[in-house]
């Protein structure tokens, strides 16, 4: 069986959910006739028609507002942001309208807002951001960041079936670079559950999305030096799977958090606070972060390479921790 890319896994999840449930509808810019800027909705208009695959004006507020309204009638809209950087344009609809709806007046908003985020493709300050933490700070939303093709498909299915507004941050660097054999037939991956991707005893590396792969690469290098790193993939940032993180730290006694998002206000700070409060006595040293610096994502390749965390930097930090 042919291996499936991360991008194709997303397309399959949309296709299969649309086939299984007529309540699932798609909204977005250039998603219909064109099939999406990256092709995530390729072929879906031809299969499901104009009513369920809606090409929209350039209007993120319109798209997400309409998705919320459709969800009030019982539908399950999936809205595409052409690039997740543009989610800033509908921040209001997500944070004030969708996120507070169930809490205020008991009206669930079963929508998914999905699209490509992240750097590594030299796309510059407006097509490379990792805007997930703006929304992790918003109770009422769920935030998902898949790292593998299997998870991209399984988590997207769970997101569509969830009764809450779910923001689904795909990583564009992974779209066509990773692939794997996917099981035939329907499966899903639950939201809010992290997973240990590699077992180890010397330190824990917690990461997600593209940086998971850099972390695994670093762990491979470290193993050659006799350092056994355990690598945890968060998969969902909100709700955060505290138990899996704590369990791993209790075992390894050292914690390194890696994310491509910028440093201040990144998920590493929250994880550090949780671990300090819940497992302080288990720690053998300070919690360390490897992240992007507090700057916009630059465009030119040498600048972007310097900006993004990489396996060498992760391994370097881990080595210092292991030998401390």
């Amino acid at each position, binding site marked *: 069986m042919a291996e499936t890319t991360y991008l194709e896994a997303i397309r399959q999840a949309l296709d299969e959910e649309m*086939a299984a449930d*007529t*309540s699932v*509808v798609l909204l977005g810019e250039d998603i*219909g*006739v064109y*099939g999406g800027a990256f092709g995530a909705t390729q*072929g879906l*208009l*031809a*299969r*499901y*028609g*104009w*009513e*369920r695959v*809606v090409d*929209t*004006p350039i*209007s993120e*507020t*319109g*798209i*997400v*507002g*309409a*998705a*919320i*309204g*459709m*969800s*009030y*009638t*019982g*539908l*399950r*809209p999936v809205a595409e942001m052409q690039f997740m950087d543009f989610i800033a344009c509908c921040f*209001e*609809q997500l944070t*004030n*309208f969708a996120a*507070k*709806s*169930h*809490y*205020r*007046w*008991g*009206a*669930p908003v*079963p929508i998914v807002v999905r699209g490509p985020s992240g750097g590594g493709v030299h796309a510059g300050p407006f097509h490379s951001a990792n805007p997930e933490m703006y929304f992790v700070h918003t*109770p*009422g939303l*769920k935030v998902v960041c898949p790292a593998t093709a299997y998870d991209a498909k399984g988590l997207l299915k769970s997101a569509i079936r969830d*009764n*809450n507004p779910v923001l689904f941050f795909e990583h564009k660097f992974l779209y066509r670079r990773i692939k794997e054999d996917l099981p035939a037939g329907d499966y899903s991956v639950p939201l809010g559950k992290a997973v240990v991707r590699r077992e180890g005893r010397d330190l824990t590396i917690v990461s997600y999305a593209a940086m998971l792969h850099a972390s695994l690469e670093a762990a491979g290098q470290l193993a050659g030096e006799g350092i056994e790193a355990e690598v945890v993939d968060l998969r969902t940032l909100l709700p955060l799977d505290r138990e899996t993180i704590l369990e791993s730290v209790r075992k390894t006694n050292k914690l390194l958090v890696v994310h491509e998002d910028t440093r201040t206000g990144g998920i590493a700070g929250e994880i550090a606070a949780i671990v300090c409060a819940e497992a302080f006595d288990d720690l053998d040293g300070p919690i360390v972060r490897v992240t992007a610096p507090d700057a916009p994502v630059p465009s030119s390749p040498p600048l972007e390479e310097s900006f993004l965390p990489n396996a060498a930097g992760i391994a370097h930090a881990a080595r210092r921790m292991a030998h401390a």
Partner: protein
Amino acid sequence: MEQTPTREQQLELYYFMRLNRALEERLERLVRQNQVVGGLYSSRGQEAISVGSAYALEPGDWIAPMVRNIGALLVRGFKPRDIFTQNMGRANSPTRGRDNASHFGDLGARHVVSPVSMLGDLIPVMTGVAMGARLLGQQRVAMTWIGDGGSSTGAFHEGLNFAAVQRAPLVLVIENNQWAYSTPVERQTRLRDLADRARAYGVTGSVVDGNDVLAVYRAAKQAADRARAGHGPVLIEAKTMRMRGHAQHDPAEYVPKKMLEYWKARDPIARYEHALAARGVMTARAKSAMDARIERELTDDVAFAEASPMPSSAEADAVASGVYCDGCHEIAPDWQRPKDELLPPKSMVEARWTVRDFGAIEERAPKHSAPKAAAAKRPAQKRTPRRAAAKSAKVRRARA
């Protein structure tokens, strides 16, 4: 289609307007007694708009009121006690103390979407409601309201444009009450008529006297019929006046006294009373019986609200519960059409655009250099109304 309400309906319109005003007078008293949590945003002088437009809808239609649309909530079946408990932060209020003012709704029976404080947001949301209902095969209209100030927001423009492009069955009522907090409408827009915004989006727009409930009703009914028939959204501007401050705390000294006097002489309820009496629809006795009924209902419901508990300590401890729907709501759309229409093979289409024309000016209208007589003789192009063609030619002449 019947645009004039029956005698009974005319009396019911009066009942809702009168109830709206008397209810807000009670709320003003409760504010003075320090019983109201949060602001009170009076709709005094604007009752004809909330009531007349909401009353023009069918029972299954959707509304999303704004903070000054208590009248619309009453028309949709909310009771004064719902509004009193909500404004007083009581445990048994529609939002159980989690939000205030008119920030509540009912997805189930009443089809009311709760507003938020961010103006304009409801327009794209109600566009989605209208699109969703249409997809489900329901013949339903979505209606929402916005103020003169709110029509300056980005959400207003994105929402109306989106609705227009999707030909969504949406009725949008602009309540032009002349003031956005302390800012007069001239400082919101250079337009004299906010209904002109409709033209920018290629939708139907009209201006109506917002202090004439029957005129509002007729305009709304016509708009709803049009939207329901699949002709796309309609914008109605209702001209009125905010007769109180922005909220209860605001004495609105920035409003010219003469302006208030002018509009007071055009009070929508007094005008309607006169009209009903002159046409013999409502006798003096019927009116006083109606007023007495309203007073009784309000007295009962204020007493009910005052006797209602504030949220308990257990509820206060559980303040972070209910942020998410963890299966507490079952989501089951009401399909009114066969689902197989939306699945292959029936749903399959050729994924290809058909364009109206190639987009050049000369495809649409006579050239501006053409002699006037010749231009007039030329038949209007297909899909282009004669008037629009003439107008665009005129615009180009002016530019040239």
